[in-house]
Every structure is written in C-alpha cells, then in structure tokens.
C-alpha cells in the first residue's frame, strides 16, 4: 500500500447503519469505512451481524436506517446488481462458480463479451477476446493456471477460490467483499488466498474480509472491526494488537474488563 492511499477518502462507507428483522435488531448504528488499498477485517461470533452487514454492503439486504456512500457519494443499493455497477464485488463462501463451465466462462458469466457486428448483436460470443482478458486477469494476480479453458470442476479448492477472487477483481474495480474465503480450504491454500488479498489491496482495491480465522485476519488486515450483538465494539489496528486481543473483543471479555 502506498502512502497516498492513506490520504484518499474512503471508497466505501457505511454511516449509522441499522437493520432490524421484525423485533430483532441485527445491526445497530454501525459505522464502517474502507479506503483504497486497505484490508478491513470484520470479525465476531456467529450471529454478531457480520453476514447482515456484508449483505447490506453489497445490496443483497437494505438497511433499516443509515446511509451507504461510495467515494463520498450517497448511494442506495436495491440489489447486488446496483453495487456491482459501483465497482463492488463479493466473493461468497460457497464460491458461486459453475463447475461445468470453464474458467473464462465463469469470469464472464452474466457479462459475456460479444463479437463485433451483426453476429454479436445476434448473441454470438467473442471467445478469443474473453480468453485473453481472463488470462490477463489471472496473470495480474500472479495466479498460475495454464489453461483458462479448463472446466472449473477440474480445479482444486484453492484454485477455484483464486478464480472466484480473480473474477471479483476483474469486475470489482473499487471494493472486494470476501465472505469466509478460506473456510473450506487447506492451510496451504488458505495462505495463497491470503497472498491474493495482499496483491489485490496493493492494486488500490479496498477489501472487507469476513473470517473466523483469527491468525489470518491478524496477518492480512490493516484494521479489524469487531461486531458484538449487532454493534461494532472495537476498531483495532493490526500493529497495536495480538491475535488473542481480537478473541477477547469477540467474546466481549475485553469490554467487561474495562
């Protein structure tokens, strides 16, 4: 991360966001901001509101009150389509890849490139251009996959996750939301995804990482937000804390000892 990103304004911001489901308060007065190139960890126990917040950030849920801002501009997301339009992409825990389709086809799913001219208007795909583009996307993240036409079903878990991240980076120019990206992976592959997150951030993309893997959160995130029963109870700087401190905040022990 270069120095000038610190002075840049937040690329994504949530102001006083609350969300209720009937009488249940899932999120209460949450503030969050992500700057370009910054990796923000979002941690908390099950039911603390991490998923709800992530869904609000990508437009899958709407806040009951509060405001979202993209680059300082107030926005309203009615669906993930709206957030995508603002350069925000999500990588879901369950990958959301079609295993019968190739890597290229997955990266371009729903956003296929068509040929020029009348064939394109008839819906014909420009496979060569998409393959080149996909290869570039993988290369830019130093993901080594030789054949972008390979079916995703033939890839390992780590490779699939890498493809999912590459797809999100390909389209999410500003913010990447990662929902438990390494939950299903072996340690070695999880490390590689960690490397990917660093790489993405170094390209100036803001990253929000939801994870239960505390050592990884501590290692990757510049800041760590702790959610407890729908409220953000701590905004921790990585270099000021140890892994154990995060756990203390998550359980509420740190709060009690104050």
């Amino acid at each position, binding site marked *: 991360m270069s120095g000038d990103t610190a002075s840049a304004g937040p690329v994504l911001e949530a102001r006083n966001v609350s969300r209720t489901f009937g009488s249940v308060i899932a999120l209460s007065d949450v*503030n969050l901001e992500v700057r370009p190139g910054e990796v923000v960890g979002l941690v908390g126990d099950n039911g603390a509101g991490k998923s709800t917040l992530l869904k609000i950030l990508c437009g899958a849920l709407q806040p009951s009150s509060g405001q979202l801002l993209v680059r300082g501009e107030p926005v309203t997301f009615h669906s993930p*389509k709206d957030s995508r339009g603002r350069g925000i992409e999500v990588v879901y825990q369950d990958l959301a890849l079609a*295993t019968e389709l190739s890597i290229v086809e997955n990266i371009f799913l729903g956003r296929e490139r068509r040929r020029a001219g009348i064939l394109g208007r008839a819906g014909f795909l420009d496979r060569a251009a998409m393959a080149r583009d996909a290869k570039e996307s993988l290369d830019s*993240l130093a993901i*080594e996959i030789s054949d972008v036409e390979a079916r995703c079903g033939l890839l390992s878990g780590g490779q699939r996750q890498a493809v999912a991240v590459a797809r999100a980076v390909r389209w999410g120019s500003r913010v990447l939301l990662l929902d438990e990206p390494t939950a299903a992976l072996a340690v070695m592959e999880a490390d590689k995804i960690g490397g990917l997150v660093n790489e993405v951030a170094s390209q100036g993309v803001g990253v929000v990482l939801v994870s239960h893997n505390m050592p990884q959160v501590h290692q990757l995130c510049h800041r760590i937000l702790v959610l407890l029963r729908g409220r953000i*109870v701590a905004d921790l700087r990585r270099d000021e804390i140890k892994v154990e401190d995060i756990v203390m905040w998550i359980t509420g022990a740190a709060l009690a000892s104050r």
Partner: protein
Amino acid sequence: MLRCGPGRVVVTDGEAVGQVRVGGSRAGEVSSEAFDLRQEHEASERERRLARRRRLVEQLQGEGLLFVFVVVFVLMWVSSPYFFTKNNLLTAASVVSVLGIMAVVETLVVIGGEIDISVGSVMAATSVLIGLMVTSGWNVWLATVVGLLFAAGVGAVNGVITVYFKINSLVTTLGTYSIFLGLAYALSNTTTVSIGGEGFSVLGSGSVGSVPVPVFFFIGVWIVGAVLARHTAVGRHVYATGDNYDAAVRSGVQADLLRVGLFVAMGLASGLAGVIVTSELGSAAPQIGDPYLLSVVTAVILGGASLRGGRGTMVGTLVAVAILGVLQNGFALLQFSTYLEDTVLGTLLILAVLTDRLVRRAER
C-alpha cells in the same frame, strides 16, 4: 462504545508476501519459501492425476456412445438385407426426426436443470386441436399456427408453475401430461379426424430431392440448438443455471426467465412434432404422442445430458437420436414386437443414467 470512523488512518507497509502461486505449479520450479515445497509438489501432482482421469472418463463417455452407434448400425446391416438401402435409411431418418426435434430442445431443458415429460401429450393435444379447428371449417394453416401457439402456451404454463411456484418440473409436467392427454382423448372422442389440404401434407410426407421434409426440420432445429448452446451467451446461461443456480443468479443471469423460456421452446418443439406427425398421417389423433415420452428422455440422457443439470451436448444427443433411430428401424425390419422396443428403451435409459453416475463419481 468505540466507534470506527475517520481520524484513524492506517498505513501499513503492504509488501506482498512473496509471489502468490495458486496450484498448477510446474514440477521442479522453485516456489516462494512461504510454502513447503515438497507438500505443494505432491498436491499439484495429485491434482494433475485427477484431472487426467476426469478427462479420460469424459472422452470414454463420448467415444463410447459413438461405439454403441457403430455396433448397432453394423448389427442391423448384417441382420437385414433391407437395412442399408437408401430408401430405408431415409425413411428411418424421417421417422426419427420427430423424436430428434423434441430431443434437441429437451437437451437444453435438461442442461438447464429441468425436465419436461409432457411432450407426447402436447403433441397429441396440438394434433387434436388442429383437427377440431379444421373440421369446423378453419383454414389448415391458420389452424396450424394456432396449434403451435397453444403448444407454446402449454410450455409457458409448465415454466411458470415450475419456476415461480417452485414445483419440481417432473411433477408439473406429469400433471400437464395427464391434463392435456385427457383433454385430447375427450375432445376427439378417441376418434381420428382426417385433415386434407394439398400443401399441409408436405410437412410430414413431402421430400426435397429424396430427403424427407421432417429431416430438414430436425437438422434446422439441431443447428439452432447447437449454435445456441455453444456460441451464445444464452447458451452459457442455460448451462450455468442448471449447474449452479445460485451462482448464475448472483452473476446476473436471468435464470428464472430463461427456464420459462426453455419450457416455452419445449412446448413449441412438441407442437411442431405434433404438426409433422399429423401431416404425415393426414389425420389428427390423440394417440400420436404415446411413444415419445420415453424415447425423448432416453435420447437426451443417452446423449450424455445429466439430470442434475449443467451438462450435455448437442452432438451427444444427435448420436443418441441416431442410435434410437436405427433401433426403431431395426425392430420394424426384423419384425420384433414393438412392445419389446419399450423394454430396450427402458434398459438404455437406466444404463445411460448409471453411466452418468459413474462418470460423476470418477470426477470426485
């Protein structure tokens, strides 16, 4: 309570942790010291072995089908002197084209993760409807157009019930199968209505050169289906929808609209099949759809489309249709019982599903 917000600017030295390398590493190449080299090497070796095996199994499945076709073809050739004659092969092609038209669209439906078993019933209902309209004085072509619209409408009903009321398409189309077959028999009083008209008979029994017209319909529908599946965004979306519905929707694919569209196309293809058979027989009859429920589904599954969706090819379906065509023709030539034909079809269907199961297991 702590608040996160501006004023706490975090600057860290974001040096990347070595090079990121995700899988697929070339053996022997020196990798980042962050990972245990030997472990990574073994893991990627295993991945490659698995990938090779998967590819092999897929190849075998494709070539196995072609092999079955050759075997059946040669068997018939030696069994009957009439089999390998121009006239017989053209007749066989004409007969199987009706099945082929529906199998092409059913392949897309199955790839999209659904199934439509109402095809034979829609054929019958379309035929009877056209018959009724013609006997009450309608122009036969106008009746045909209305018949096709009706068939597409039944498809739309199948699609809307399945997609928007979230009913398993097997159940939905079993229901409509029964509804429209019942109506077809009731409205026709189980009798056959003859349909004249010089031009109309061309659809089913005419020929261009010596090639029967139904074959052209089949080739046309097949080409459209094959191009759609392979070369268009819509085709990719069909695969994605059947393979991973959630992923497709999250990626912005109009999966629901697409599925309804597939059912409408299926209805239309069934209607066309009904029109062709009606034209060929020169009469409308409620029985015409009976053989097609089993044979269409068998052709599609035998062709390699998976009932779990996301998988299937038009080439596979073409070969499977050819196999069924040769079998049907052979049974007629050798004067085997037509009832036994159903037995053979049923066996093929189960074998095909078992093969699909084995292929999927090999890929895990």
